[in-house]
């Protein structure tokens, strides 16, 4: 498996352009071609879950000169999330994208985006990470504006400007780090930083990274683009953007850099917890009043990503006991995976409703459970899951995060005690508001009176229903099999993230 590791980014990158050539021969083949690539990637990513951590030297150049690819528990978990959600979105697009022209170009952009995200996850080199970040971002700018209508172009332009600023900030931070340490290799940078005191240059780099990755993850002061960009994209792309892209480019990158390169730090922890709490509150409050189905989901993405950020922030805190910090971190990582599953299910359901009814306004829909039973059922399951209703997966991760904060409040001393309590209460309140918002959605879309013009509606096509059923089954399955998932996947990811020493040792070990 080790020798195949670069294929995670090389395969979709090569096939993206080969796909365009294939589509000149036959349009039909290019559908299956893109599907096949994603299926191979998803299979590889599932296999990666059972492989021991290793490193790969690109071109045989030893670190710190060459580019190092790193595989550990965290990257395996995120790779599995990216590629499985990617495969399901790809299956969904086969029918859904018939309403658009230029389908082969869509597949090319889709594969490029996957290549960029996989690259960000597997790399252990700062500049390499920046390049992959840009590949994924550029593909997503183009995909947001794919419909070329007024709103879509405007959203794409906004996203492009803010994304451009984010990338510039990240590059600025990387240039600063290089000038301080003289290396771009992430374990090596971490090693060099251990000999330095906290100084203004490091604080500047931290600020640049929090701004840059925060913009990509759309934590609250940087969230302005997300509610425009995510609803404007075609539904499978909304699912990819909300479900995976903001996690791979934003949260994963910030976790990798903060935990492994800079190490646990009071200041970063306080900032991340504050931003997370702010995102949760602002996102959910803005979401309640929305009439557009997808726009509401986009605001909920902001609020749910707040849970992930706040969990990571608690994990970074050096003052609470390590067990509680690890517990909060575990909750954050679990919520990351869960959010990918239920949010992509919700976005794909909204796409399925839009495909048949032609509207995204939730007040114009109603009673759809009588005409589209499968889509309605999956939408319900995902809604229950995002609101944190017990048997489903969202319940467990929210429970862990809230419990971690209450424990931190009970067992720590000083001023931070009050803050932990406040964050815990905010997390409970936001879960409650989410439930209200989704109950209202259910009431206006799935139940209630069926408008007359929808009387002859049919269920969505087969290839759109299958990914929905799989995602809904995952919502339920992960919730029920939580102890198993906890022991295998999450523990490995959490341990990898907390173990800075062995990350630095990758430099010598390989």
């Amino acid at each position, binding site marked *: 498996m080790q020798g195949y590791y670069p294929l995670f980014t090389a395969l979709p990158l090569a096939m993206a352009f080969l796909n365009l050539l294939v589509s000149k021969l036959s349009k039909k083949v290019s559908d299956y071609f893109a599907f096949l690539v994603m299926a191979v990637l998803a299979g590889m990513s599932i296999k990666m879950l059972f492989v021991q951590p290793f490193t790969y030297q690109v071109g045989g150049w030893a670190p710190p000169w060459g580019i190092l690819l790193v595989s550990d528990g965290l990257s395996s978990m995120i790779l599995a999330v990216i590629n499985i959600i990617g495969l399901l979105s790809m299956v969904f697009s086969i029918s859904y994208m018939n309403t658009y022209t230029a389908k082969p170009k869509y597949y090319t952009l889709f594969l490029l985006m996957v290549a960029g995200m996989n690259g960000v996850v597997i790399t252990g080199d700062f*500049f390499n990470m920046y*390049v992959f970040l*840009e590949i994924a971002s*550029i593909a997503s*700018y*183009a995909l947001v*504006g794919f419909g*070329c*209508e*007024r*709103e879509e*172009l*405007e*959203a*794409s*332009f*906004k996203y*492009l*400007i803010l994304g*451009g*600023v984010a*990338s*510039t900030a990240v*590059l*600025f931070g990387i*240039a600063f780090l*290089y*000038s301080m340490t003289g290396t*771009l290799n992430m374990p090596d940078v971490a090693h060099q930083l251990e000999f330095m005191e906290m100084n203004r240059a490091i604080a500047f780099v931290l600020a640049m990274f929090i701004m840059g990755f925060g913009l990509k993850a759309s934590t609250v002061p940087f969230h302005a683009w997300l*509610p*425009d960009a995510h609803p*404007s994209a075609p539904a499978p792309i909304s699912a990819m953007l909300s479900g995976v892209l903001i996690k791979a480019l934003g949260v994963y990158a910030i976790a990798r850099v903060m935990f492994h390169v800079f190490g646990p730090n009071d200041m970063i922890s306080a900032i991340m917890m504050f931003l997370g709490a702010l995102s949760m509150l602002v996102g959910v409050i*803005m979401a309640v009043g*929305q009439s557009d189905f997808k*726009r509401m989901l986009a605001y909920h993405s902001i609020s749910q990503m707040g849970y992930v950020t706040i969990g990571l922030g608690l994990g970074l805190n050096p003052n609470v006991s390590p067990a509680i910090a690890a517990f909060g971190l575990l909750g954050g990582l679990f919520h990351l995976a869960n959010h990918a599953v239920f949010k992509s299910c919700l976005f794909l359901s909204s796409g399925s409703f839009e495909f048949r009814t032609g509207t995204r306004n939730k007040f114009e829909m109603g009673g759809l459970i009588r005409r589209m039973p499968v889509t309605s059922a999956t939408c319900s399951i995902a809604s229950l899951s995002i609101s944190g209703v017990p048997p489903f997966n969202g319940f467990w991760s929210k429970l862990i995060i809230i419990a971690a904060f209450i424990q931190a409040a009970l067992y720590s001393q000083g001023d931070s005690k009050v803050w932990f309590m406040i964050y815990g209460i905010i997390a409970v309140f936001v879960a409650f508001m989410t439930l209200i918002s989704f109950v209202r959605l259910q009431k206006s879309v799935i139940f209630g009176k069926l408008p007359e013009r929808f009387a002859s509606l049919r269920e969505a096509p087969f290839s759109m229903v299958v990914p929905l059923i799989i995602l809904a089954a995952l919502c339920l399955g992960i919730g029920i099999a939580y102890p198993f998932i906890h022991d295998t996947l999450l523990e490995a990811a959490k341990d990898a993230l907390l173990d800075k020493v062995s990350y630095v040792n990758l430099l010598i070990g390989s």
Partner: protein
Amino acid sequence: MILYFLSLALFVMGLYCLVAKKNIIKKVIGIVITEYSINMFLILVGYRDGGIAPVLMKGMDNSEIAAGSVDPLPQALVLTSIVIGLGVLALMVSICLRLYEKYKTFDMSEIKRLRG
């Protein structure tokens, strides 16, 4: 030292252009200015006063290069970042053209169908 501040000033000017100007073409120019300020900063990071080009000529040995040359790595980074910048610029300009086709204006304050 003054050069570092110049590249910072350029960065801030780009950001100002991005925030204050309403014309979307000017916003695009603002993004490009910030990108170029970072490129300049990267070159400055590798620069060494009186350094030679990092090319191994006949009759030189490795230690001579290591002692006297400028750092070649940032130059490679800048090349990559210029190419990426070109890609982003092409996309930005084409979206601006499409926006002009739809709205018949380059004024961002008139392009506001999305709100809230």
